[in-house]
Each structure stands twice: as structure tokens, then as C-alpha cells.
């Protein structure tokens, strides 16, 4: 892999950029792999990268039915934070946060990790109790966090209306300074390029249509390009997890719903942090390009269409106008939807299954982007060792039978 730097850029500029190397190969599938990862989104690519880098398993294929990073990786609002309530979730997301902090250098690809801070607003007394509880837990877990009052929130975010005027005035917030945003496409491309350079085959336009078993254990995947043998199959296919599970007769504790987001036209910088409100249902940050990036809610109903219900957009923008009355004249440029896999406890599933050699990483709901490196990292361990990474262990699918749920619903709220 030829390294990227300002010098390489300069060198290539002299030759009119005619000699750039391909970011990744476009290989023909081999007959057999040690591991086939189904799903070429951020999580799948990260899994491949860490399998190769940390576990020395390089005979790996990532099988993607469309194009790399084209699912939820391409559709999310790019928020990063690790201030989850429960220890299990907090440790997992903090593991991810630590990886974010050195990811651009690790991948030699600028993922534009921007720790500009995340505010989670409280609008009523119970919100504030929950915030206090979460921040205290975060701090004792080694995760940065502060509880701010309305005045402090106002100082950090002048655009936000913290006055009494609001129907649900801001009472305070939690603040995670290390939280922020990153460039979503770059994450997928950076992991893909790095995995490819370690020998991983990235097979795009390759759709898995069946999972083949031999004497109970997995032995490969049927694809539109033929059978690909594999000792292990790891499924990382948000929005299609239940379909893959069905191929081996499994059901999952998952329902897929459209989640929408929208952006404004690009405007000059007015918002330097990420602001999230569960009670008023609005989430906003501003991209480097100047777009206000707004997260909407999920559609209540199951859906696989990558588009959402319009009233959700209306409610979201009403919330944004309520929180930020200055932006009412700004205009929405584009709205889109992704498909998120929600679990009953709003926590992911990173798990072995009852079928030897078959692994699932799914159920990230609305908050998977922030976990991309951490998820790939612990999943790679789980697949490589055939035993859960210690941080992944609580996220086993068994918890839905034992009752050991990690219920982030009430606590951290919607996990954008």
C-alpha cells in the first residue's frame, strides 16, 4: 500500500494525478477462505481489518451485495460518543472510542475524527436524574463526562435556545468532550483499503443467497457468483440480519425499521458541537462542508424500504426549530433513510450461534456508526478465537433467553 501524505499528494499533482494506485483490488473470489465476512459495511470491513492485523488471519473475504460502505455506513449522522449507562455498553463503546482516537494514523486514511463534544440535553427533572446517573457511571468507568446546567450549556452552544420560552426548556445536559463526529465514507474506505493491503479480498456485487452446512457446521456461502467455501462465516449485515438468519432456520430478536436523517443546505459554521435531545426528539451537528446534519427518529413500523415516513421528518424539524429558532429559515436539502436492526434492549448482538462456525454481529439499532472500530475489533477476536471477546461476552444472543438484558432504552435514550 502506498502511503498517503501531503507529499504523495504533491508528487501526484505534478503528474496530473494520473498515477494513483487503486485503493483496493477487485479480485476474483477464491474457492475457499478461512473466514467469509458477509457484509461490506463499516463493521464488516473493520472486522476483516482486525482479523488480518491482530489475528494474522488474512485468507478472508468480505462479501458485499452492493458496494462497500453503501448501507448504514453511508446513511448515518456520524455521531461518536461512549457515554452509555450500563457497564457492558460503556466498556464496549469506550473501547471503540479509544480506537477512533488513533484511527486515521492506524489506517493511514483521514477519517476526520473530530472530537468536538456531545451534549445530551435534559428537559425535565427525570431527564436530569438520568443524566446525573449516567455521567457518574461514565466517570467511574473511566469515560469523560460532565453534568452541565442550562447556563453552561448555553455557553458551549450559543445557537441553542436555553431560555424559558421553550415548551420544554433546557434544564441541563451531559457533556462528553471526546465525543464528536467522523467522516462516514472515509471510515469504510479506510478500513477497506487497509484490509485489502493485508490481503483481504473485497468482493463487491456479490450477494449471499444461502449458507451451506456440512454435518451441522458452516462450510461456506452460496452467492450469485457461485459457492464460496469458508471455515467460518461472520454475518455483519445491518438491515438484512434476519434474512441471513433465516437461511439457517434461525430467528433473531430483531426488528428492522427505517431510520431517517436529513441535511440542510451548506451554511457557514454556526454549530460547533453535537447536540442531542431525547425528550424533544432532535439531534443536530454541522458537517465540515457546512450542512446541518439532523438525525430523525425511526419509523414505528417494520420496513426495508430505504425511505421513511414523512411525519417523522416533520416532527424532527419541528423539534429542531424549537431547539434552534434561528434556523427556521434555513432549508432542508436532502432527507434519506437507512434500515436499522433494533433489539428489545437497544443493545447490539455480538455472538456465536448454536451453529459451529456461524457468527452474528447485528442489532446496533440507531447507534452503530460510533462502534465501527470497536465492533470490528471485538468481533474479529470472537471469530478468530471462536470465543467471545471479553467485551463482547455480555452481548451474546443468549441474553434474550437468560433475561440478562442490557437495557439502554430509558437510560441513554435513543442511541444515535
Amino acid at each position, binding site marked *: 500500500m502506498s502511503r498517503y501524505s501531503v507529499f504523495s499528494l504533491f508528487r501526484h499533482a505534478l503528474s496530473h494525478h494520473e498515477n494513483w494506485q487503486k485503493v483496493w483490488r477487485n479480485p476474483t473470489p477464491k474457492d475457499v477462505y478461512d473466514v467469509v465476512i458477509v457484509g461490506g459495511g463499516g463493521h464488516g470491513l473493520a472486522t476483516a481489518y482486525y482479523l488480518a492485523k491482530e489475528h494474522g488471519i488474512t485468507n478472508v473475504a468480505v462479501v458485499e451485495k452492493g458496494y462497500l460502505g453503501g448501507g448504514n455506513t453511508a446513511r448515518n449522522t456520524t455521531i461518536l460518543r461512549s457515554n452509555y449507562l450500563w457497564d457492558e455498553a460503556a466498556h464496549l463503546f469506550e473501547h471503540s472510542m479509544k480506537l477512533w482516537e488513533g484511527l486515521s494514523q492506524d489506517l493511514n486514511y483521514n477519517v476526520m475524527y473530530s472530537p468536538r463534544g456531545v451534549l445530551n440535553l435534559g428537559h425535565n427533572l427525570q431527564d436530569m436524574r438520568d443524566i446525573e446517573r449516567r455521567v457518574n457511571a461514565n466517570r467511574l468507568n473511566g469515560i469523560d463526562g460532565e453534568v452541565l446546567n442550562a447556563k453552561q450549556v448555553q455557553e458551549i452552544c450559543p445557537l441553542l435556545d436555553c431560555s424559558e420560552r421553550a415548551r420544554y426548556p433546557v434544564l441541563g445536559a451531559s457533556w462528553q468532550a471526546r465525543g464528536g463526529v467522523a467522516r462516514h465514507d472515509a471510515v469504510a474506505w479506510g478500513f477497506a483499503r487497509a484490509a485489502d493491503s493485508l490481503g483481504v479480498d473485497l468482493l463487491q456485487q456479490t450477494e449471499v443467497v444461502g449458507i451451506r452446512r456440512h454435518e451441522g457446521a458452516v462450510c461456506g456461502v452460496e452467492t450469485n457468483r457461485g459457492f464460496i467455501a469458508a471455515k467460518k462465516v461472520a454475518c455483519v449485515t445491518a438491515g438484512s440480519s434476519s434474512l441471513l438468519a*433465516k437461511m439457517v432456520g434461525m430467528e433473531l430478536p*430483531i*426488528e428492522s425499521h427505517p431510520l431517517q436523517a436529513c441535511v440542510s443546505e451548506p451554511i457557514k459554521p454556526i454549530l460547533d458541537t453535537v447536540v442531542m435531545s431525547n425528550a424533544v426528539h432532535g439531534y443536530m451537528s454541522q458537517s465540515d462542508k457546512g450542512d446541518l446534519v439532523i438525525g430523525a427518529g425511526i419509523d414505528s*413500523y417494520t*420496513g*426495508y*424500504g430505504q425511505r421513511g415516513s414523512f*411525519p417523522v421528518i416533520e416532527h424532527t424539524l419541528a423539534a429542531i426549530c424549537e431547539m434552534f429558532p434561528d434556523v427556521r429559515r434555513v432549508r432542508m436539502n436532502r432527507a434519506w433513510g437507512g434500515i436499522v436492526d433494533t433489539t428489545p434492549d437497544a443493545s447490539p448482538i455480538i455472538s456465536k450461534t448454536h451453529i459451529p462456525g456461524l457468527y452474528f454481529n447485528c442489532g446496533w439499532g440507531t447507534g452503530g456508526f460510533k462502534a465501527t472500530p470497536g465492533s470490528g475489533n471485538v468481533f474479529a477476536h470472537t471469530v478468530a478465537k471462536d470465543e467471545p471477546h471479553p467485551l463482547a461476552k455480555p452481548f451474546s444472543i443468549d441474553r*434474550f*433467553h437468560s433475561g440478562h438484558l442490557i437495557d439502554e432504552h430509558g437510560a441513554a435514550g435513543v442511541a444515535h
Partner: protein
Amino acid sequence: MLHLFCPYCQELREENEFHYRGQAHIVRPKDPESLSDKEWGDYLFFRNNSKGIHHEMWYHVSGCRRFFNVTRNTVTYEIYETYKIGETPAVTDKEETE
């Protein structure tokens, strides 16, 4: 925004009059105590999450406050039928054509 036919009000109503209530035809076990933890967990949490034809329950919360079932395509969002609780759907997976 969906337009749902309420089988009790006998007319189409806007989506925001309804609450979605998940997969239809999940029957509560008659004797929960006789179930294994796995069976009970399956009943509580595991869903077919169909891509394509899906039987699901809705509640006409801002209307007649009746629960009813809908057969809907979860990809196109086309609604094939709505029917009352206790009735069986006329459109089932078998008729699904990709």
C-alpha cells in the same frame, strides 16, 4: 406516510391515527410455566421480521381504539389487506412472488 384501512371504521385513515404494535398472530402461551427459558425467550423477543409479506398488528389509537391486523409488504409498503383480530389473513407468504 401510510394510508391504512381500519376494518372497524371501514375507511382509510392517515398513519398518524395509528400505533404500530409489531408482528401479528403471536399467541401468548396457554401455560407459560411449562415453557423452557428458551421457549419463553423466543415468545418474548424473537420475531420473523419478514422482508416482503408481513402480518402485523396496528392500533387505531386516535380513532376507534381497536387493534387489527394488516398484511403489508415491508419493502414496497403496499398493503394487501386489513382484517380484524381473530380473522385469518387471505394473503400469506405462500403467495409471495419476488
